[in-house]
């Protein structure tokens, strides 16, 4: 049974509607979070992402991960590009730090024991467990960076922490999560001075 992107690569036109139905919500929400709900920008961004999906559907390689993860990564990259373009002009209009604080700091409890996660692709369960086991400040920094697409500088402002500390928290979070994936037996150098 070919995946949606494989059907697109094969020229199956009915795959377009399925692709929008399956990943439209994920991409829409990602764009809204990253672009702070500037509606016209969000719509343009979603269109960009789908355009790239139609063009580059053949780049999806099922041996390297799930299709959803591929789509999410592609969307992330596209939307971050757009965010960088507009953030300098609109940061002050759209990003009131106080408003962001209220929404950004609500992190759901992810433990890896949730229903449905057992069937999730390769690393999802380990990822959830890894995230769950992160120290709170690292969890927050990673969440804001990945979930909200916030820059180190934004995170620094919201959490009232120096930018260097934010960077090292995210780095440590990444290494710890990778360590979870590697298994606890591997010793990793978690403490590194910020570069």
């Amino acid at each position: 049974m070919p995946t949606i992107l494989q059907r697109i690569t094969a020229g199956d036109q009915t795959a377009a509607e399925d692709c929008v139905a399956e990943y439209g919500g994920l991409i829409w929400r990602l764009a809204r979070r990253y672009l702070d709900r500037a509606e016209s920008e969000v719509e343009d961004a979603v269109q960009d992402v789908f355009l790239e999906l139609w063009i580059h559907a053949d780049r999806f390689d099922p041996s390297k991960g799930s299709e959803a993860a591929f789509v999410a990564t592609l969307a992330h990259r596209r939307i971050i590009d757009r965010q960088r373009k507009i953030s300098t002009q609109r940061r002050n209009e759209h990003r009131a730090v106080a408003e962001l604080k209220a929404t950004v700091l609500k992190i759901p409890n992810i433990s890896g024991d949730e229903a449905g996660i057992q069937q999730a692709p390769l690393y999802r369960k380990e990822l959830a467990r890894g995230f769950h086991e992160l120290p709170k400040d690292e969890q927050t920094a990673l969440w804001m960076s990945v979930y909200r697409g916030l820059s180190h500088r934004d995170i620094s402002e919201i959490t009232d922490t120096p930018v260097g500390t934010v960077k090292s928290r995210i780095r440590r979070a990444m290494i710890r999560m990778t360590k979870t994936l590697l298994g606890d037996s591997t010793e990793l150098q978690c403490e590194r001075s910020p570069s």
Partner: protein
Amino acid sequence: MSDSHNNAERLIELLAAQQLGDLSHAEQDELTSLASELDSLPDEILGDLLVMFDQHSEDQEQLPKALADSLSKSGQTAIAIRGGSGPINLQQATAENNPQSSESGAWRWISVAAAVIAIGATVFGVSNYSAHNQARQQFESKLASLQNKVTHNETLLANSRIAAAQAQISIRTLEEEKQLQATELAQLESTKLDLASQLAEATSSLDNAMDRIAVYETPLDPAQLAENRRQLLTVPDTVQIAWQPFDLPDAPAEQQGVQGDVIWSDSLQEGYIRFVGLEPNDPNIEQYQIWVIDERGLEQKVSGGVFNASAEGEIIVPIHPGIDVGRVALFAITVEDPGGTWVPDLSRRVVVAPRDG
């Protein structure tokens, strides 16, 4: 940039092998070293993290219906264009008009720029953190702006290509319609020709018929007819029979006292009838019709033509049987509707001339 990407790919490969418990010592060391050098999340981990966070998010807003519909539509078009043959070739559509905007060219340029900027930053600012940082920020912003340009161009190109494809589809549809109309037109033309040829045929048969009718209707020169008749009388097998009233036992003929005779040659299938005292007829109401009956009996009546008695005195009329008759047994004259009839009912009989009677 490409180094860190390759590292991430290698990391995922090693992670997968480790999950399967399939890792040598050397690979374990490589994994450890790669993981400690991470400075951004590998794509595959980032993707899974994004999906996981999204699934656990309170925000589960869906794509607006109108946007979803328009995305599906443009997706169908885009898939139709790529037609199951690898990635859409943006260069193919635009290379001639805009050779500098090819995607891979721009990315190659960015890579070169990145390398140059990175090397520059390393040479001049390796010991100076802030200078290095500044160079890095400059590089990042330059990279971002180039990436934006590339994205923008890609979007423009893809949109133009979609528009071009749609225009092509419209043109094809119009051409098909045009062809269909041409075919219909050709069919109509051929029907017209058919009808014209049928009309010509009908006209020609009508002309023939008119000619034949004219033979009967045109009054022939009486002197010529008399001469022709005289000549026929010299043919050895020509018989000459006098008319008598066509009386039936209890129904006398319409006209009594008609004089005259019929001469006929079986070998030439030609003959003349001659009358004196035949009542003139009005051709619009009725005509005289000649009947030739051969030896097979009264059932074999062959029309010898119609004629009018328009003048007083002697009338001579040639006999033209529609078909060959055998040895003639009897001639008869009846009165019929204008143009004559195929099958006489013998209700209006005038004269009869039995050959052996």
